[in-house]
């Protein structure tokens, strides 16, 4: 399956991927409204985390692991592996906000929703024709959406 691969050799830590992510997951699909309104009002947050150390940085998000620890840890059936697409799928309606997945994922790819007992996790921009928004927004080719298996 195609996954998002971050490359720390190219990442410049600009956080544009985060902005693209919140825009893609917003109601308005408008960067300014998403950032200035939905982020504060609805707790809209990016699925990506950008880590920086000196001049090295990297933007990570859910790896959609073949055998995900989050699915093993989920007590509600809110996370499962889609055998057809290979994606690790999150069902918000089933989630009870126990944070077991956040604890179990050793890749730190799961966030708490700022205001609700729900999680935030990359869905590879499901349904978005152009593919993941973060990859499209990356100005230095540090994020690649590729089939590598």
């Amino acid at each position, binding site marked *: 399956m195609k996954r998002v*691969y*971050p*490359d*720390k*050799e190219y990442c410049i830590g600009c956080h544009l991927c985060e902005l693209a992510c919140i825009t893609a997951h917003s109601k308005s699909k408008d960067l300014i409204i998403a950032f200035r309104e939905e982020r504060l009002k609805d707790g809209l947050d990016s699925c990506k985390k950008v*880590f*920086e*150390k000196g001049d*090295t*940085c*990297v933007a*990570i998000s859910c*790896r959609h692991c073949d*055998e995900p*620890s989050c*699915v*093993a*840890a989920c*007590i*509600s*059936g809110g996370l*499962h*592996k889609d*055998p057809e697409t290979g994606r690790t799928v999150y069902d918000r*309606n*089933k989630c*009870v*906000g*126990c*944070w*077991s997945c*956040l*604890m*179990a*994922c*050793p*890749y*730190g*790819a*799961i*966030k*708490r929703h700022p205001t609700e007992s729900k999680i935030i996790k990359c869905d590879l921009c499901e349904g978005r024709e152009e593919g993941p928004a973060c990859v499209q927004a990356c100005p230095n080719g540090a994020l690649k959406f590729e089939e*590598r298996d």
Partner: protein
Amino acid sequence: MKYVIIGNGIASIGAIEGIRKVDAENEILVIGAEDSPAYGRPLISYLLAGKIGPERLALRPQEFYEKSNVSLKLGTRVIAIDTKKKIVATDKGETLEYENLLIATGGIPFTPPIPGSDGADVYNFTNLAHAQTLISKAKEIKRAVVIGGGLIGLKAGESLFDRGVEVTILELSPRILSLAFDENAASLAGTRLEEVGLHVRCGVSAKEIQRDAEGSLKGVHLTDGDFLQCDVVVIAIGVVPNYDLAKKSGIGVDRGIKVDDHMRTTAEGVFAAGDVAQARDLLFREDRVIPIWTNAYNQGFCAGKNMAGRDITFTGSLAMNSISFYGLPTISVGTVNPPEDDDAYEVAAFLDEKKRSYRKLVFHNDHLVGYVLVGDIDMAGMYTAFVKFQMPVPEDAKKQILAGEPDVLMWPDDFFKDTWNPGVVEPD
């Protein structure tokens, strides 16, 4: 039948998903003692609290079983296993052949002998039926006493309280959550519960359950001489492996069903997983029963793949718990209460009572082997990485971890690349 699974909990789901990774065709039969579809056992506290409805209990939708070609025989108990003839007998009088059998019968509540505990209105809180009974009871009762201040006891108490019942939790040891957490974390959680209005009493337990001449429950006599009036008692001391079936079938049992590193029991073609199994522990390299959700799934998954013919070694159990008390989240992973007299362990703890934030990190030589987080839990996964992948923590990285800022850039370069960017062609 190619695959038969006894038990219909999370280990069983792990096994189905493990088998289907390898073998998409041969039929799987799941035999479950309870009548309901596989549900998230921890969810019964959410159900009792009224946070979710019964429609949200199922761990997998009905179509999962159809798509996975799994048939279910629910409300059925296996009463005997003949490991020579490779058949199981059920309480419905059926005998079923298996090629590969998984025993995932889970745990049963441990009930200490308390005089008066036999009779009405004494419950455990480990299955759906108990939760449903307590929901209907909650409307007509005033007070409940919960015996046991571990995770199950606290969650039972919290949910009953949410139903308008006055709750007192009794814990024999000096503090609640003595297994999974330490003193500071327990104190933060206890304070939170007290604040909301639950009563938590430590260092005391139930001596006798008082009943009247008709046998109706009246209250609980405590070991300190006190008497607590109540309408129901919930006994939540813990669970023990439900291994009687295996034992009487001649399968090797110690504290749980003994399994090797492929989750195989001592009987050919018979595997075990979950709370009933005594499997390899990741950190201690010895076999232990660790009745924890994630382990149950992982062991089932590993067993499933091996049942389907793969050769997969179990990576080892890792104790981990994530649980919130009225909005105060707590997480505990790995070794959190190391032996005090062992110099190889080093503990760093940061407590901010005002902010209700606590962080405890346990190092063994130069490895992080466990941690506790209360309040600020957002970096949990990044700590888990160091525990789970057993990566050494160099001095500069340690400073950053101690500051509460673990990240992926601290990982060894090769491991980072294999994880995040495998197969990339490096420019010259």
